């Protein structure tokens, strides 16, 4: 009789209440495999950049909503700023504008003179950079990378690879462009390098980001002529950054007797952590035609190529 009852029970279906689909373990295994393959595709190939761009564009309204509280806060803060403070600021700015105007007059004559001299020597004219004004809307959301997001995108004709500067110096380079925003990788990021020269003695080098708000200048001999406090400016030989923009100041030099190279640490001069306006410099035509969407690594390699070319040009000119 017991056997009969057992058979009866076995014949029954499991009630719907207990049906939970595949077990969490099998689901976990499936989704882990899926995400690992997506990671591999994203890291090795460029298929997913369009998906990402479309998603970011779709996300833009949500982003605007998320940004409104901080914008309101800023507006209210501006509204309640003290009258006295405004008057003082106005006075200081007027004085600054006056000083700049005087300097600009000299600059115009010097520029005209420079063009004239270059034409006498049959040299090339320096590359003219147009620029678009943008504003840092927020830091990158991934604390591992040194990235800021700027409120200008492909709708404002921004292209990947453009140099970005603020009033004090170079900030970095545009690495990803979305329709209304773009990602600027800071010069302190590990992936970015920038061709520089020392302002004092025109020594050329390449500075690499270290990932912790400093720049490293490797491959310089231990007896190199660099002092603490030296200013590093862009050398302009990559064609992306115009020559003479401030990049960083040398803060520490370590000479290790075991290594043939000096360890030179410098800190950037541009205010990358402040909420500030910045300029996105347009790419020169030659580079724009060559690579429409350069990645960081590509532009670095490109920099190296142009360094070599420039050396050649220099030696030719000296003959």
């Amino acid at each position, binding site marked *: 009789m017991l056997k009969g009852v057992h058979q009866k029970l076995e014949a029954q279906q499991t009630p719907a209440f207990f049906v939970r689909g595949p077990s969490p373990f099998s689901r976990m295994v499936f989704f882990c495999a899926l995400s690992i393959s*997506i990671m591999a595709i994203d890291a090795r190939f460029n298929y997913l950049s369009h998906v990402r761009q479309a998603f970011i564009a779709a996300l833009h309204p949500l982003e605007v909503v998320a940004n409104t509280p901080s914008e309101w806060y800023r507006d209210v803060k501006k509204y309640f700023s003290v009258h006295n403070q405004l008057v003082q600021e106005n006075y200081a700015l007027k004085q600054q504008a006056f000083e700049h105007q005087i300097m600009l007059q000299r600059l115009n004559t010097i520029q005209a003179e420079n063009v004239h001299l270059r034409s006498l020597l049959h040299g090339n004219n320096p590359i003219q950079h147009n620029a678009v004004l943008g504003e840092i809307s927020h830091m990158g*959301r991934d604390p591992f990378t040194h990235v800021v997001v700027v409120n200008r995108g492909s709708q404002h004709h921004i292209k990947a690879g453009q140099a970005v500067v603020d009033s004090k110096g170079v900030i970095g380079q545009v690495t990803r462009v979305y329709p209304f925003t773009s990602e600027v990788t800071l010069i302190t990021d590990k992936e970015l390098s920038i061709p520089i020269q020392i302002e004092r003695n025109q020594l050329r080098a390449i500075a690499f980001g270290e990932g912790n708000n400093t720049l490293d200048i490797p491959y310089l001999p231990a007896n190199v002529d660099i002092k603490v406090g030296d200013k590093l400016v862009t050398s302009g030989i990559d064609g992306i950054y115009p020559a003479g923009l401030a990049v960083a100041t040398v803060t520490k030099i370590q000479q290790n007797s075991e290594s043939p190279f000096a360890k030179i640490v410098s800190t950037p001069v541009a205010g990358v952590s402040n909420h500030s306006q910045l300029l996105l410099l347009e790419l020169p035509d030659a580079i724009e035609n060559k690579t429409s969407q350069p990645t960081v690594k590509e532009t670095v390699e490109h920099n190296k190529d142009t360094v070599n070319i420039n050396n050649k040009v220099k030696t030719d000119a000296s003959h």
Partner: protein
Amino acid sequence: MRHTSLFTVYLTLLIAMLCQLFPWIGQGIIFRPDFMLIVLLYWLLRAPNLCNVGTAWLAGLLVDLATGSLLGQHALSFSITAFVALSYQRRLVLFNTLQLVAYVFILLIIERVVMLLLKLFEGNDNPGWHYFWPILTGLLLWQFMILMFGGLTRPKTN
């Protein structure tokens, strides 16, 4: 436990996404809790019939897309955490508040460690101890979720 609708789950996940998108300027980003993960864990533990490993994976993928990080890394860490969360889900009614917080603490540590491993594989540096701050701020957010939507432990009947 009260009945929850699918609508509430997705609405709170959307709000979490919005919080994830809040602009952060300066060093405060170190303390930012993982909004998406906390809300996900809450629904995973409370209504596993509505929110499962697949939901966690999708949420992770959306976070990846929004943050611009390597696609699939949040998806991976979220699905592993969701699996661990679900494996003890039926025993949660026996836990008291402190035990539940400890359980969530362990889950958040798991997510951070998986993420750290992925980041190290990618070639990033060791970020230092401040990388684990979001666990503590996340626990605060967890208590807030419990205040908002009610606890997970069985109310005392005697």
